């Protein structure tokens, strides 16, 4: 029982109230009521999601785009696989490059073994693909044939009719010169009728053409499957070839050994040589020493993968969020304390709050650029590049611009809520403070801020949500590495696969936003002193 109540409390604080009927049911408490709650809060949402996926699968393929069909849930899942495969491969390359000694050699051996395996599989897969393609080609021809025949027949009919009618009318027209008005009018009616018939035949031909094209676009699951297997194997082969190179002759250890060998021989040459240009030989030694050092600290130039971009986006949004909080909370407190200050701030809040991030970003980029004419040597960038984890995420002016834009768009919610929280302080509490003769700071930290804390956190929660939405837009526009950059790259790429990968991003962004929101709800509940739910 004790465990049950503790669990329920945790669930409640975390804002996962849909789990509480499960816990209660497990404890055997009012099973009918709990089952009803489970039905409503778990089964209905799941059913709604399934229904959504089904509708999506049906509707999406009907719309053709430049980047192929709108991806179905299955295609999006495949795209997710593609994204994670790319990440895994690049991480493996990065690690492989740094391996040394036996570990490197065993890795190399395994990779070579796998490569021969893959090559064998690829041959089989390509063979199968060829067979399937041949068979589907004939099948396709069979399916298409009636459509094609109908189309060709109609097309010929149209062409023949047009030609023959034109010839007939031309001939008739020549004889008309000597005829009177009534004949000429009859000729006009004749030509009109021919025109109508031609149009009709053309319409019929076009309709048949559409049918034919639809038939041609018919896809064959077998062919798709074979193509996929073959592509995947090809991809893995490419990866293995590169990997073997990175673990083998291009590995750091291998290159370092070679460099050290060169260094040694150049030293020997310089120390023992009895003829030649010693100045040049000595210079060679220095050059080789430097080169060896460079090799020793070199890294595999890993491209940005989505997980790394997500982490950078998170860093960016939290930098902006922190900035917004540092600005908004003190100003909000001042606004709440002093009506005069509030009056002074009101026009700014009203004016700047609705401004879109897309307007702030260019301004911020130009201003930040003005502060950092030579970003690589600016003290802030240099300082940030020394922070242990942050340095791997290439903190550049674009990152700062995006973060500042996030701050500019998200600080208003915190500011207004803080002012409201401070302003709504209970008069009785202030009277207590007056009777106790609390000083300004004691009053601020012991009475005012604790009162306002739940509302401050409500504001912070909104700010973080706004910030996360703004960030992706800012990244797309600033091409600062991150989720937004990924979306932009995929959009520019324009292939069917990258189109599906944008859909993956929708779910990733949504999921992260949801988690951030839950975290803020949790914090908000921790600081709330009353029992009212903070939803």
């Amino acid at each position, binding site marked *: 029982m004790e465990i049950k109540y503790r669990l329920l409390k945790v669930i409640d604080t975390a804002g996962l109230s849909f789990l509480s009927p499960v816990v209660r049911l497990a404890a055997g408490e009012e099973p009918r009521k709990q089952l009803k709650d489970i039905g409503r809060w778990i089964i209905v949402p799941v059913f709604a999601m399934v229904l959504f996926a089904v509708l999506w699968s049906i509707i999406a393929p009907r719309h053709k785009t430049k980047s192929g069909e709108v991806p179905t849930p299955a295609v999006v899942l495949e795209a997710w696989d593609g994204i994670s495969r790319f990440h895994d491969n690049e991480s493996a390359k990065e690690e492989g490059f740094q391996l040394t000694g036996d570990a490197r050699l065993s890795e190399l051996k395994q990779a070579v073994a796998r490569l021969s395996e893959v090559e064998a599989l690829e041959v089989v897969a390509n063979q199968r693909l060829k067979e399937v393609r041949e068979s589907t080609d004939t099948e396709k021809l069979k399916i298409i044939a009636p459509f094609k025949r109908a189309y060709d027949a109609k097309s010929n009919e149209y062409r023949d009719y047009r030609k023959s009618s034109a010839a007939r009318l031309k001939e008739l027209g020549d004889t008309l010169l000597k005829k009177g008005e009534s004949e000429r009018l009859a000729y006009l009616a004749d030509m009109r009728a021919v025109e109508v018939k031609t149009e009709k035949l053309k319409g019929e031909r076009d309709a048949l053409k559409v049918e034919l094209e639809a038939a041609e676009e018919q896809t064959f699951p077998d062919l798709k499957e074979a193509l996929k297997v073959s592509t995947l194997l090809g991809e893995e082969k490419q990866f293995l070839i590169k990997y073997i190179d990175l673990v083998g002759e291009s590995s750091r250890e291998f290159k370092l050994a070679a460099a050290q060998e060169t260094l040694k021989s150049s030293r020997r040459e310089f120390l023992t040589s009895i003829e030649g240009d010693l100045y040049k030989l000595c210079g060679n030694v220095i050059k080789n020493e430097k080169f060896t050092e460079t090799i020793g600290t070199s890294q595999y130039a890993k491209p940005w993968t989505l997980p790394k971009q997500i982490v950078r986006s998170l860093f960016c949004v939290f930098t902006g969020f922190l900035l917004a909080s540092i600005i908004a909370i003190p100003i909000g407190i001042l606004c709440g304390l002093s009506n005069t200050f509030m009056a002074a701030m009101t026009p700014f809040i009203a004016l700047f709050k609705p401004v879109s991030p897309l307007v702030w970003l260019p301004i911020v980029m130009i201003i930040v650029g003005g502060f950092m004419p030579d970003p690589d040597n600016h003290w802030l960038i240099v300082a940030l590049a020394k922070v242990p984890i942050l340095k791997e995420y290439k903190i550049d002016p674009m990152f700062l611009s995006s973060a500042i834009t996030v701050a500019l768009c998200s600080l208003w919610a915190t500011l207004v809520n803080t002012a409201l929280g401070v302003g709504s302080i*209970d008069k*009785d*509490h202030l*009277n*207590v403070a*007056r*009777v*106790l*003769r*609390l000083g300004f700071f*004691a009053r601020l930290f*012991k*009475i005012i801020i*604790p*009162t306002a*804390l739940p509302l401050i956190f409500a504001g912070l929660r909104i700010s973080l949500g706004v910030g996360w939405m703004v960030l992706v837009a800012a990244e797309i526009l600033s091409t600062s590495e991150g989720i937004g950059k990924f979306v932009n790259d995929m959009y520019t790429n324009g292939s069917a696969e990258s189109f599906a990968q944008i859909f993956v991003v929708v779910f990733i962004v949504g999921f992260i936003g949801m988690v951030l929101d839950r975290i803020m709800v949790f914090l908000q509940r921790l600081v709330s*002193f*009353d*029992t009212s739910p903070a939803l």
Partner: protein
Amino acid sequence: MSEVTTGTSFLELDGVAIGFGPEKTRTDILRDVNLEVGENEFVAIIGFSGSGKSTLVSLLAGLERPTEGEVRMEGVEVTRPGPRRGVMFQSYSLLPWLSVFGNIELAVKQVFPIFSSAEVRKHVDRYIEMVNLTDACDKAPHELSGGMRQRVSLARTLAMQPDVLLLDEPLSALDALTRAVLQDEILQIWEKEKKTVVLITNDVDEAILLADRIIPLTMGPEATLADAFPVDLERPRDRRTLIDQSAYQRLKAEITSYLVGLNKEARKLRSKTLVAMPEVKPKDFKLPSMMPGR
């Protein structure tokens, strides 16, 4: 104030008036209020709701300044609130994010800055025990009943060790049973600690049980203090035996009939100064078209 039963006046109101609004059209809530409270005297001020009782407490505490006259304590004018005049508010006014202990600790730390943390702890614990809340020491105010909250408020006020206790209808938000229990507790504590107390109340029984002197407040606006009823019942008082005493019954009847008289007088006064309402009527009695017609 003809009868001042105890020696020198400790807390006094001298010709005090307070009003709100601009000077020319000011309506006085209290006018010409004179009160002298002796040291260690228990005075109850009784009146109808809305007659300005809470304003009177605010004046005594120094939370508000009178527009005329002076509030003095030991002959010195009161210009601002301070811990020497401890106020117990009707609405408990406990800080909801602090525990019972934390609420009292905040006051103790502020009033006795020289205390070491162990001394603070001891001091707080002593007052929590005095109001029988030791078990609820770490609870938050929202986890307590109204009676328990008011006890915390009492402990906090007492822990400040004020020279004067100002109790602003401390028990009027509680149910009758809890109120009786708390009245007994206040009585016991007062008899032990002997402090100057001004109790604001609307309960005649409560006033008779606790006070040395009961002063009715006339109906507002422009309320003032009427002549006091001395309570000569001997102490320690016990509510069970008290109600059977003829002196108690007589006093209760006297005060009640006085208060009822006040109410009638006020009504009469009000009917004389009845403000004529402007004759405004809506022109169109039809329902707006958007509402479903009947």
